């Protein structure tokens, strides 16, 4: 039996993080939340392994979520890296393309579309043998 996929949800709005956690737990994920870039970076540096890292952009500072994405992109095994933001701009979307994140969702996110996309990305990563934990 395959283990539950895991997701780290990074959002400074506690209610948003909590809602996303509930949504992904309902989808069968093991969900962890962090409410700042610093908290997320500490989790990622601390041998925690996630199948997906999904981060907001504007937290302690504008676009600081890109730091979480960059850190996640360098992990081995590399998780699926997702940005979910209400403040997408050509500047931060260009940066996200440059670091080759896997998915960019804009808030308010269509949760069905988001969960479908993330399930697909996790399945692809597992099928290619590059899956997370």
């Amino acid at each position, binding site marked *: 039996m395959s283990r539950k996929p895991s997701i780290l949800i990074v959002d400074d709005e506690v209610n948003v993080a909590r809602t996303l956690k509930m949504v992904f737990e309902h989808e069968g994920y093991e969900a962890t939340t962090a409410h700042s870039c610093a908290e997320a970076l500490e989790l990622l540096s601390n041998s925690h392994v996630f199948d997906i890292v999904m981060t907001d952009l504007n937290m302690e500072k504008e676009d600081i979520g890109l730091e979480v994405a960059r850190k996640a992109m360098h992990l081995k095994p590399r998780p699926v890296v997702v940005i979910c933001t209400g403040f997408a701009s*050509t500047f931060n979307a*260009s940066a*996200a*393309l440059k670091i080759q994140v*896997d*998915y*960019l969702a804009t808030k308010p996110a269509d949760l069905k579309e988001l969960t479908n996309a993330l399930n697909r990305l996790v399945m*692809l990563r597992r099928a290619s043998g590059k899956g997370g934990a």
Partner: protein
Amino acid sequence: MATANVSQPKMALVVHADMGVLSAFQGALTKNDFVTIVARDVPTTLLAMTQHYFDLAIVSSHLNEPGDGWPVAGVLHLAFPKCFVAVLAPETSVLTLQAAINNGVREIYHQSTPAAEVVAAILAELSPSSSGRNSKKLQ
């Protein structure tokens, strides 16, 4: 037994509705030692994908109608995960960048950029020493 020293040619696919653009890209890529396959529509693209392994693909975001090139780029990324997929797009916008990210596209270029410049920029991106930044990209 001796093994043949066969090096595989670099394969490129260009998907664009305009024959003139296809010809320009084919010329620019051939000069850079790519074997280049061209396609003007989705069925021809799918046929090419069944017959070759591509290292590079350049796809117009507008084939038969605006935006229909994005899923073609997405399918190319899924079929050939190591392929550098670039898209030629008409405008800079968050939606364009979002489509690029969500379809696994590595880079977008303005559709009016000359073929030789697009190819040079892609080769610079592919070069191991590259910092990978080019001013002709969509800003």
